[in-house]
């Protein structure tokens, strides 16, 4: 088992507009990308658990072969920059994703 952060070239989070957060994982080596994709570990259950998402909050998990990447998008509980928000740009929400173990 290896952590996702050790297989990926880039792991990041960012707003996609003020109401969504999008997580990107990009790889420089196709074998790592294939390994992660084919492991099936990056799925709805894993992400909902890691990000405490209620049903419906996770919008999409999309693998994009030609860019060797996967994108995960979910709804914010609190929109960017208003009362209670902790991360206006959504740029520091990738921590839990990094630790996911890939067989």
């Amino acid at each position, binding site marked *: 088992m290896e952590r996702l952060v050790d297989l990926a070239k880039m792991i990041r989070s960012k707003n*996609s507009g003020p109401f969504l957060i999008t997580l990107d994982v990009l790889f420089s080596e196709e074998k790592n990308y294939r390994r992660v994709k084919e492991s099936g570990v990056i799925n709805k259950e894993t992400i909902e658990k890691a990000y*405490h998402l209620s049903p419906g909050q996770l919008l999409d998990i999309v693998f*994009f072969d030609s860019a060797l*990447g996967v994108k995960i998008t979910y709804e914010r509980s609190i929109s960017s920059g208003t009362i209670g928000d902790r991360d206006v740009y959504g740029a520091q929400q990738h921590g839990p994703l990094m630790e996911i173990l890939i067989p």
Partner: protein
Amino acid sequence: MILKETKILAPCGILGYGFPDTSFRRGLDDNPDAIIVDAGSTDAGPHKLGAKTAIVSRMAAKKDLKRIIGGGIEKRIPVIISSAGGSGGKEHVEWTLSIVQELFIEENWPSVKTAVIWADIPDKAIVDAMDKGHVIPMGENIPPLTKEKLMQTTGVVAQMGYEPILKALEEGYQLLIVGRAYDPAPFAALGVFKGHDLALSYHLGKVLECGALSCDPGTTKDCMMGVLGDDYFDVYPTSQTRKCTTLSVAAHTFYEKDHPYILHGPGCVMDLSMCTFKEVDKNRIRVQGSAIKPSDGYWIKLEGARKVAYRTFVVAGVRDPLLIRKIKEVEVLVEESVREQYSEIDPSLYTINFFNYGIDGVMGELEPLKDVPHEVCVLFEVLASTQEMASALCASLRSTFMHYGYEGRKSTAGNLAFPYAPSDVEFGAVYEFSVYHLMKVDSPLAFFPIEEWHAR
């Protein structure tokens, strides 16, 4: 017919973020057909739009505008400043115009045929559209727009597509100060103006609107050149030190959007799933296969913010291990004490929040790690309907927290280390995005009037 190539120089990702003189000069010497910069973003939250302030300093905007417009005048090519002032509303555009005017006088530039394209949407038009069911939320976690919320909103802008900008180019304008626009729209407008494919032009815009962010290492603070050809576009950095690879450009199509290859824009849907990326020269990447189709009806994205509260906050450090171990428990007791001290104030009129940096300040309840740190930065705030109330309650919160006699305390002289005196900071108004909806329009040009503008 083989089209002549068109070169677009993108100096930086956000006007005011800056770019190296050497990269910009190399870009100009490469003879671009236009210089285009996106000045906008909603990334910094609702405050700039709601409070009608800029996202960069006046000094930073002026420094960049001087070089960009000066470069356009030197090369006699069009210059487009898009989403002017950051949020692209009337006040943001006027702020930009005041800087441009100052520059024309100070630099003694010759007259340039200049247009302003406004992007403010009148409330009445929105209400009419609402009555027809033509206003829908951008997502399921956004409440439907109500007239009450619209009236509380400080002004609504909409992201224009490429069409109004294309019209201004066709009318012969050389300098365009554009209000809120879809980030890639000014690039797409220039591409279509020169006879290029809309899909490639929009996709190129998606890459160039971030400056050199599609490089490795990526940055919004450096220049990027885009070249539109017959059935392709190329991109390359104008800096000699930055690299651009098939992976860095392909990866950039992921950036800041909800889907890796489907992009929804004003009146269109882009599909980048069939794109190919190949290196045609060292550091020069060719993209082909971008596709676009019209969306079902022409919808524009409305953006607006309203004031929701006033904030006063305190930053303090905690180093006492006894307090750190039970800090959340103590914070609950401190809040209860303040609410008791001010029992005459309706508790629903204010909110108290604690952020414990070092424990879970960034992630809050999502934080999976439970390590106990040796010091914690506590940020606490009161949000209330007036600044006066927020400050009064925050002062009480601070003094109560400072001296709170929690069970097991051994340090009885004070619980908090304040880095500053005074410790309490009046933040001012807090906003929220109250409008983030799509509105159906009859024409892409309908709400984006083009006006001739004179610097002198």
